[in-house]
């Protein structure tokens, strides 16, 4: 484990045996990850890998990929999920709490400062700021269209499965109450995937019997 010799902090976590310093390192690493990643999820992964695999050697690269698969498959915020899983692997629940807190804190503090000083009235009544946001809004839409295509590629959609995202997007956009609930389609997707496996599994068993 690497420890930073120039550090002059006196937090209680590092006063104990060598094991204590890892909490501080975990917190600092994930604080950095939270503070320096823009645009969410995917951009974050390379920084996390650099910190916990290359720099600190806390986790092997293979294990990191497995961990990533789990964190991505579960609901919640990807970065926080990864932090939780890494912290848990290193130091159990306390480690995961420290890592998750480190990830959350930078954006919480920054957004809070923005929310306090950049109120909607400021945006609406200031001609310059409102013009800037009029330009930014269409660009944000573009920034969400881009991951639609990249995620469609990552999900390896083909002619047999393309209808699923099309129907889901159409139904949710129509905004018709319960049938437009994203949660409904997540459940349907999970149950559908499970049933497909179950049916094909039964066929296999019948064939082999």
């Amino acid at each position: 484990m690497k420890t930073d010799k120039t550090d002059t902090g006196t937090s209680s976590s590092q006063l104990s045996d060598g094991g204590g310093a890892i909490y501080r390192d975990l917190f600092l690493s994930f604080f950095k990850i939270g503070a320096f990643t823009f645009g969410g999820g995917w951009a974050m992964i390379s920084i996390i890998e650099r910190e916990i695999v290359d720099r600190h050697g806390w986790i092997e690269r293979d294990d990191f990929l497995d961990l990533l698969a789990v964190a991505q498959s579960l609901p919640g915020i990807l970065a926080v999920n990864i932090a939780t899983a890494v912290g848990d692997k290193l130091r159990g629940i306390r480690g995961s709490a420290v890592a998750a807190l480190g990830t959350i804190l930078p954006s919480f503090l920054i957004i809070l400062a923005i929310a306090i000083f950049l109120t909607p009235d400021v945006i609406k009544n200031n001609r310059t700021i409102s013009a800037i946001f009029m330009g930014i809004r269409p660009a944000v839409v573009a920034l969400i269209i881009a991951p639609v295509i990249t995620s469609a590629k990552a999900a390896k959609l083909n002619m047999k499965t393309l209808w699923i995202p099309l129907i889901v997007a159409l139904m949710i956009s129509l905004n018709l109450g319960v049938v437009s609930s994203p949660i409904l389609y997540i459940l349907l997707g999970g149950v559908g995937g499970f049933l497909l496996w179950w049916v094909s599994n039964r066929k296999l068993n019948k064939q082999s019997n």
Partner: protein
Amino acid sequence: MGIYWKLIWAYIKIGIFGFGGGYAMLSLVEKTVVFDNPWISEQMFTDIVAISQMTPGPIGINSATYIGYVAPGNMNPELASPIWGILGSLLCTLAVTVPCFFLVLYCSHFIRRHHESGAIKGIFSGLRPVVVGLIASAAVMLMNAANFNPNGIDWQLWSSIAICLVSFLLVYFGLPVGKNKFLKIHPIPVIILAGLTGFLLFGL
């Protein structure tokens, strides 16, 4: 005070059902805070997305912190002070993270053990196409007059469409820097450029 309970419950649901990372989660956040509840306006929601793009950190945390801050004041003028706002921020951020924290803790042990199980693989193969649809719906729902033509003026609508198109090309394909050579542009400079364009077109 009821607004705080509603916010907490909404963000617990957003956290637990927010599959597929930031953008996929956005459609759920948008539906909850703009359409199902009158907490913030559509335009303000887009502004939050823009602010999240320009500031570091997970979009889920950013939106929880911001909406938690402004929603109490929007619903009840008596709560329009920083202290009530900070309380909302804190509660929303905790609500969106704490349940998932424990979920990850317990599930990661379980899934790591049954990683190769066909049932788990089947469930995830069913989830993936749905997640693509979720992201697409977030984009479709934001393509409206509030974001593209708030003043109802034709040339502004066409300018907005052009900004959207150019931004997409820059982020997805990149800037052509030679024959068949493209330099992919990071979202942050694209946002800054769009803001600058907005200032030059609509602000002078």
